[in-house]
């Protein structure tokens, strides 16, 4: 189940190929930034090459999202015990910053 990583690392991108990819991404880099990217990409390309890409089509189940059925009720959650407070009558409440509107 745990396939060995592939060992093939793609050859480095030529300056022309790099420029093409950058222009497709809409990025304008200076020569120093391109040099940094070339070095970083070499590392990332090696990582990508180590991940198996040749999986059987039925393995698509391995890349799936769970969507709850429409009738599903939310799981009941036990009430989280609040900090033990034993307020005296008329006592001030614990420190609490202004949190009136917490709608997001």
């Amino acid at each position: 189940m745990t396939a060995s990583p592939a060992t093939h690392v793609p050859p480095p991108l030529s300056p022309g190929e790099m420029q093409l990819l950058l222009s497709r991404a809409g990025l304008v880099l200076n020569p120093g930034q391109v040099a940094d990217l070339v070095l970083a990409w070499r590392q990332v390309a090696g990582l990508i090459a180590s991940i198996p890409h040749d999986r059987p089509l039925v393995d698509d189940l391995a890349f799936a999202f769970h969507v709850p059925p429409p009738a599903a009720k939310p799981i009941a959650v036990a009430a989280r015990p609040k900090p033990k407070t034993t307020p005296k009558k008329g006592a001030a409440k614990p420190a609490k910053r202004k949190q009136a509107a917490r709608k997001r």
Partner: protein
Amino acid sequence: MKGSPAPFLTIAEASRLIASKRLSPVELVRMLLARIEALDPQLNAFLLVTEKPALNAARAAERAIMAGHKGPLLGIPLAYKDIYETAGVRTTAHSRILADNVPKHDAETVHRLQTAGAVMLGKLATHEFAIGGPAFDLPWPPARNPWDIRRFTGGSSSGSGAAVAAGLALGALGSDTGGSIRLPAAYCGIAGFKPTPGLVSRRGVIPLAPSLDTAGPMAWTAQDCAILLDAIAGHDPADPASVAVPAVNYASAIATPLKGLRVGVLRRFYEHDVPASPEMLQVMARAATTLKGLGCRVEEATLPSVQEYNAVGRVIISAEAYALHEATLKTRLADYSRAFRVRVLAGALVRAADYIAAQRRRTDLIAATAKVFEKFDVLITPPTAGAAPLLNEQRPDDGFSRPLLTTVANVAAVPAMVVCGGWTASGLPLGLEIIGPSWGDATVLRVGHQFELATDTRARRPEL
């Protein structure tokens, strides 16, 4: 209220003293503000100190205590990594891009802590957007390690690690996408806990790579992490990854002895995949002995290689981080640090097919990891190969070129924590990582706590 606070207190100790009115939250906060003023210029842990609001909150907590209120975090001073949104308080992600960003709302976790009565001391240094650092080309310098200020704190929750280790805050919040809570915990000699994804809300935490991001506590002890987790864990419908699971009282759960627990030692990780230093090997040997002494059954365990987990994690982080920052990178490229650009720009070249291959491979690795937990309750490994390296030895491409032992737990979607496992001959901390199965958060914290009780690693503090 009476009594001057000791320079170093755990959350549990301070909570007991405050509850019994032997310690004033106001005096505690004053003492910490004075420590921050005296020590932070050499540590750079804080990006912002919220002195007045902290004192106001401490006074409110004191009034509440005097009125009879109680709570484990009432009056406890904390600080937050500067990717946690704080209402009305600047939140920069340690980046020029958000230098003037003042959120309208608190992150859900911050809200829960404030509601529990915690006092915010300020906002803490991070690597830029939790990935680009340590960097010297940003408006704020990188945090430094309290055990030796020439050394790296680990990242990206760098200020959280430094502040807690130096006794500038009793606890902190960090975030962990590939090890960002556990690496600074290891290098700074504190406890850091990365929860099961979905246990702690990430709403209001500036994301790095949403399919791997987790938010969690950092503190001097595992017990303090459990106390903080009790406050911040719980379902949040506004975080799509949040899961509704029954509440657990972590601070109570950690008291159960470890007798009979099955502990797997990931020996191949640190003898082959990421070879550990001789001193770290000794820490691992002593940890195994300690756990056996506590009644655990300790055997060797095997997972896929650290490199396999890292390849998946790094490709996902590159692609997702680039996607989140693409628009800004196109317009404000020069405003990011060089370290951020090196670590994120390569994501522009990751193809969709490569990203999906990484996600599919992640599913395999999650299953392979879960299988191992059929035989073991927890796994142990070093979080790093050795002690904190020098800060000026850090390279912008480190995230790619050196596999991280910590990334395993992120990719596998399991909880993990680092506690202090021991020391080098020169007095630098060495971490021990404890990994549990999904939703085994309480067990991980319990092992960390019982290990700390059985060793003397919590007796030493940095001399500053």
